[in-house]
C-alpha cells in the first residue's frame, strides 16, 4: 500500500496513493497509521481522495484506528467521494468519523 506522509504544523497528512482499499491491504494500512500514532503523531488527516473503491474491511481498519486515537488526537477522513462516500453513509459511519471534503477543509476543521 502506497502512503505518503507530510507534516503541516501539528498535523500529519497521510495520503493514500492507491485507488483501492480492500481486505487485502487493510491490515497494512492499519499498521502504517498505527505506527504514526506510536510515534506521537496523533493529529492525523487521512486523505483518501485518490481512492475509488473501498470495502467494509478497510472501513473496519479505520474504525480500529479511530479507537486508537481516542481522545488524545484527531483522525479526519478527507476526500471521500462516489461509492467510497456511499460506504460511509450506508453504514452510517459518516456520523462517527469527522469527514471533510478535502485536506484543506480537514485542516480548517481540526484547527478550529
Amino acid at each position, binding site marked *: 500500500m502506497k502512503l505518503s506522509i507530510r507534516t503541516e504544523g501539528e498535523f500529519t497528512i497521510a495520503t493514500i496513493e492507491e485507488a483501492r482499499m480492500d481486505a487485502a491491504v487493510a491490515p497494512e494500512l492499519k499498521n502504517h497509521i498505527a505506527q504514526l500514532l506510536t510515534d506521537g503523531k496523533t493529529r492525523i488527516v487521512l486523505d483518501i481522495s485518490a481512492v475509488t473503491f473501498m470495502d467494509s474491511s478497510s472501513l473496519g481498519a479505520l474504525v480500529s484506528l479511530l479507537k486508537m486515537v481516542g481522545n488524545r488526537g484527531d483522525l479526519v477522513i478527507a476526500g471521500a467521494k462516489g*461509492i467510497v462516500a456511499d460506504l460511509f453513509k450506508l453504514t*452510517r459511519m459518516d456520523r462517527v468519523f469527522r469527514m471533510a471534503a478535502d485536506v484543506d477543509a480537514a485542516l480548517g476543521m481540526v484547527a478550529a
Partner: protein
Amino acid sequence: MDMQYQEYNIRLSIDSRLEQVRVLSGALRGIGQELSLSAEQLGQLELMMVEAVNNVIEHAYQMQGGNDVHVRVEYSPQEVHLVISDRGHTMPDELHSTTRDMPDPEGLPEGGWGMGLIHLLADSIRYSSDAKGNHLHVSKQLV
C-alpha cells in the same frame, strides 16, 4: 453499435485469497465499462461483489486458499444479476434471509456490515445450496 437486445452470461473465478479479489474487481469494471454501466451502478455492483466474495473467503473457506470462488455476471439491458458461488461452509440463514440491521455506529463496530450492505444495495437477494455448493444471487435493476 446497438446493444439494446444483447445479453451476456460471463463466468469468472479466483482462488480463495483476499489478494486475488482486486483482479475480480478489475474484470467486473471492464465488463461494466464495455456494457456502458454508469459509474454509480458499477461502484454499487463492485461493492456488492467484493463484500460477497470477502465473506466467502473469510467465512465459507475460513481464509484457506486453494478453493474456487466463482462469480457469474448475467447482464441484460434491464438488470445485472451476480451469482457468487463456493463449496465451503454454508452461510447461516439469519445472515441472508432477512434485511440485516447495520451494526450500531456508536458502538464503533469494526465489521459485520457485509451482508447488510448487500441488502441495502441489491434489488433482490437469494441464497441457495445444492450439490454444486452455495450460491448467493444478487440482482440490480439498471432501469
